[in-house]
């Protein structure tokens, strides 16, 4: 009973959080559809219909704030030329040094959002976006320390291609006609230690793992109408097996109604949440741990962020 009550409270909170994003994506989609209707009646501009959902790992510590789920953070932005989405996962180990891990990832994503609107934004180089955002961190009066992974995706409307940059173990997946056509690779130094952008406290520099934005994995590929793109942090990829994800995602191919898309994102996030708290289930995380000679079982409790989008042209 208690757990049911707990789950329903979490669902309602998640739905409330996702509701706000639903509204923005609905108005965003409506506006862009209206805009494209005015511009060209023949072929509408390619754009994303995107929604977000997620759960913080520990709801007691993190009260809900828009734009982040616990230590994870996400952003969405769009300009004339491009639609941009991204997630970042703050590395939790900083908490023991008295540094809030969510601050770094949140700042990274908020700055990416602002930088998209700048004149020097290049819609074909998401690595530049990450690099500029990382540099902005050093220009803040308020010292921001910590580290995080990041994954940024840009849809270039003119060329109908998607450019991505990924550092660490967050990632994306593209589904077309029931098949996974593109997927990002996890970047890890060793097990459970992903590549990460970091700003260590001064003096600890050499002791801290810090990868530069240039070490990001980049991919560029064309997209077609109806493609489903999922960007998520490792809370999703480590808990939900790929075939289960594929089942969920192939249902929304070509879906343009943001409400239905939101429902799918919610269920995916909930799935990840449930599986992460399950101590018996052999999650992808447990499987890869075993491959590394660690006896693990069950899901991995972690922050979950799901950014789900379909390409509409």
């Amino acid at each position, binding site marked *: 009973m208690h757990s049911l009550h707990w789950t329903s409270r979490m669902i309602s909170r998640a739905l409330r959080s996702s509701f706000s994003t639903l509204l923005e994506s609905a108005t965003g989609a409506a506006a862009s559809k209206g805009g494209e209707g005015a511009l060209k009646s023949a072929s509408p501009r390619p754009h994303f219909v995107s929604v977000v959902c997620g759960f913080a790992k520990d709801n007691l510590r993190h009260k809900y704030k828009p734009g982040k789920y616990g230590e994870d953070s996400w952003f969405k932005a769009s300009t004339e030329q491009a639609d941009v989405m991204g997630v970042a996962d703050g590395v939790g180990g900083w908490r023991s040094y008295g540094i809030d891990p969510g601050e770094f990832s949140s700042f990274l994503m908020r700055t990416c959002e602002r930088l998209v609107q700048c004149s020097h934004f290049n819609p074909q180089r998401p690595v530049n976006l990450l690099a500029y955002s990382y540099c902005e961190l050093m*220009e803040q009066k308020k010292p921001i320390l910590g580290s995080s992974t990041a994954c940024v995706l840009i849809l270039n409307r003119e060329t109908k291609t998607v450019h991505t940059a990924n550092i660490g173990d967050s990632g994306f997946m593209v589904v077309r006609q029931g098949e996974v056509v593109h997927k990002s690779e996890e970047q890890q130094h060793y097990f459970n230690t992903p590549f990460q952008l970091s700003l260590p406290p001064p003096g600890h520099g050499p002791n801290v793992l810090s990868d530069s934005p240039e070490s990001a994995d980049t991919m560029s590929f064309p997209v077609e109408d109806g493609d489903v793109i999922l960007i998520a942090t490792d809370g999703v990829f480590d808990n939900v097996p790929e075939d289960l994800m594929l089942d969920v995602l192939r249902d929304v191919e070509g879906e343009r109604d943001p409400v239905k898309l939101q429902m799918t994102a919610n269920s995916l996030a909930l799935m990840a949440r449930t599986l992460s708290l399950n101590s018996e289930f052999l999650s992808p995380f447990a499987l890869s741990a075993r491959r590394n000679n660690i006896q693990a079982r069950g899901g991995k409790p972690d922050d979950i962020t799901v950014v789900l989008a379909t390409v509409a042209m």
Partner: protein
Amino acid sequence: MSLLALAQASASTSTSSSSDTELDAQIDFSTMLMQRQRELSGWFGCGSKMQPDQVEDQGYYLEQFVLGVLDFSSQYGIEYSISYTAANVIGRPSKFPNYGDYPETFTMRTYGDWWQLAPSATREIQPQNLPKLATHDYIVVYFEDYVVPTEVAIFETFNPGAVIRIWAYGLTKHWTCLWEALDTDLTAPTPRNSRRFAPTLKKTTMITKTIRIDFNHSRLNYYTEIDAIMLCGRTVSGRLIQSILGEQARATKSLSPLSKMASGQMAGSITCKLQSLEFKPNFREKSDTSLHEFISNDLGKFMMDNRLEDPLASVSAPAAEAVPPGMCVTDLPFEIILKILSYLDLKSLFRVGRVSRTFYDISTHPLLYAELNLKPYWLVASSELLCTLARRATMLRKLDLSWCGGSNEISPTEFKKFLTQRGDNLTHLRLNSCKFLNASCIENVGIVCDNLIELSLRNCATDPPLLNFSCLANLKNLERLDLFQTAFDTELLLSMLEGNRKLKHLNLAFCGVSVNMDDVADHLATYNTQLVSLDLWKAHFLSARGLLAISRCSQLEELDLGWCLREASLGDGLFQLLSNCPKLRKLFLSAVRGTTERDLIHIATLGKNLEQLDLMGILNITHERIYDILVHCPKLQLLDLSFCENIMEREFDVLAEWSRQFKVDIKSSRIFDTR
């Protein structure tokens, strides 16, 4: 509104002497107005009732935010950043109505008068030219649509109260001052709260989409931050704009700078008056040149014919009582009159020259033009003015052309000619934010002005860097070199440092990421040991080795290392610096996050002469260390502890108490997290 009333209303706004307009009631108003409409094209403004043949839509009320930034004099952040830089003024306000020190706003480099109290402070050239409220900084922004401005709103989110003037650039290519702060405006205390500042603008009919805001920081407690600027007004039809622009293009040579400067808005009144009187010079075509000729040649006879008062006669009248009759100002010895006139600002000097032949001779004496400051006249400074000044300023020693030439009024050729003619004895040259400078101008500076003691080239950053500094290596006597926000080649700077052994003040703030500061520091330690002040704000590539090198300049009194050495630890550098430079009065370590507690102890023990200390954003500060510093540095006046995250909230009251006790201004701003 009847034709007559409209005409009288417009006539009275443009003439200064109201008594004469009553006499003019006999004039044919309608033809006069038609003529004025042709001459003063800015009059068109709102849908004119004088032209019933044109169907004018009245336009609609439009509020718009900034589309782009054309120019600014200084900003806190570095060029491509979006934190604390001028680019944040663009678009809607992002933080208003929150109050706090946010990076999403536009912040300028200085606040208060702390920079005037520092060892690197400069004295203004020809200070009598400056208005009472001198402009310290400015920003020029443009909007999307042309409007007739009715309101300019500035959203200030931190320490409001720095705005002193608002200018608008009209279609007629002239700047008009829409609002100017009075002394009473500034003495009124501004609340410590964000505000939407929208002063009452002068009533105008000009059409504009470019606004310039002037700032004065002297009364600010800390940095002021602007979130957005909004321009409200009535739109005008595109056809009207095209017709005005077309007329501009067809107009002959623009109004000469002399009459522009001296008469300002009075050009209209002179033509009005001249029309009413018998002497009617033919000025229908080429009005500008013939007016000029008239004033220089025929004005004397004209005034005699019409028995108009000589304004100086009234001055001499009371003197006539004290002095035997027949004595007037011009009977005083030449040198005395010269001394009197030397207190005049440049505009008044030109005006005095039009009084009579004698005054013209005295006022054009080269000794009055030994120091020239055209910064307050940035809106009218043009090539013709330079030409005129070149004729007079044969003994030119100090020249300040800062901020001039923003709208292509000064040509580089004219500047080079001026410099070649008059530049060889120049000792002080300031060319801050001069948009007309190109590579050959700088080359000219290097070749001609080899007696330069001070060279200031602030804000000459262009991308790609246009400026060729190689000829500047010819300068060997420099004591002050200011390259704030200017891109330069490291090799050339190094050769200049080698050549100028007497260098005392060097400003390399915002020099960008391409300069290896350690090499520069090594050169300074080797060749420029007399260095008194050094500004390395945001020099990314300075390391502890560079700091050790700088510490060998033992005459240092001012050192600004803000935002340098970010990741690196300082090592022994700060200790060496404080031991070797006992005269250090100003030390800025903003965001030098590698400062340790030991460094703070050193500051307390060795910084006996410190007056200004900036420790913003340093993590390891505890209030015991602050107390140490306050006790052991008796001359301390400014201590900036903003964003020192280690200081607990409850300790801020203690800081306020210490601030009173030790008579030190302690700054402690932080972002007020409203969530």
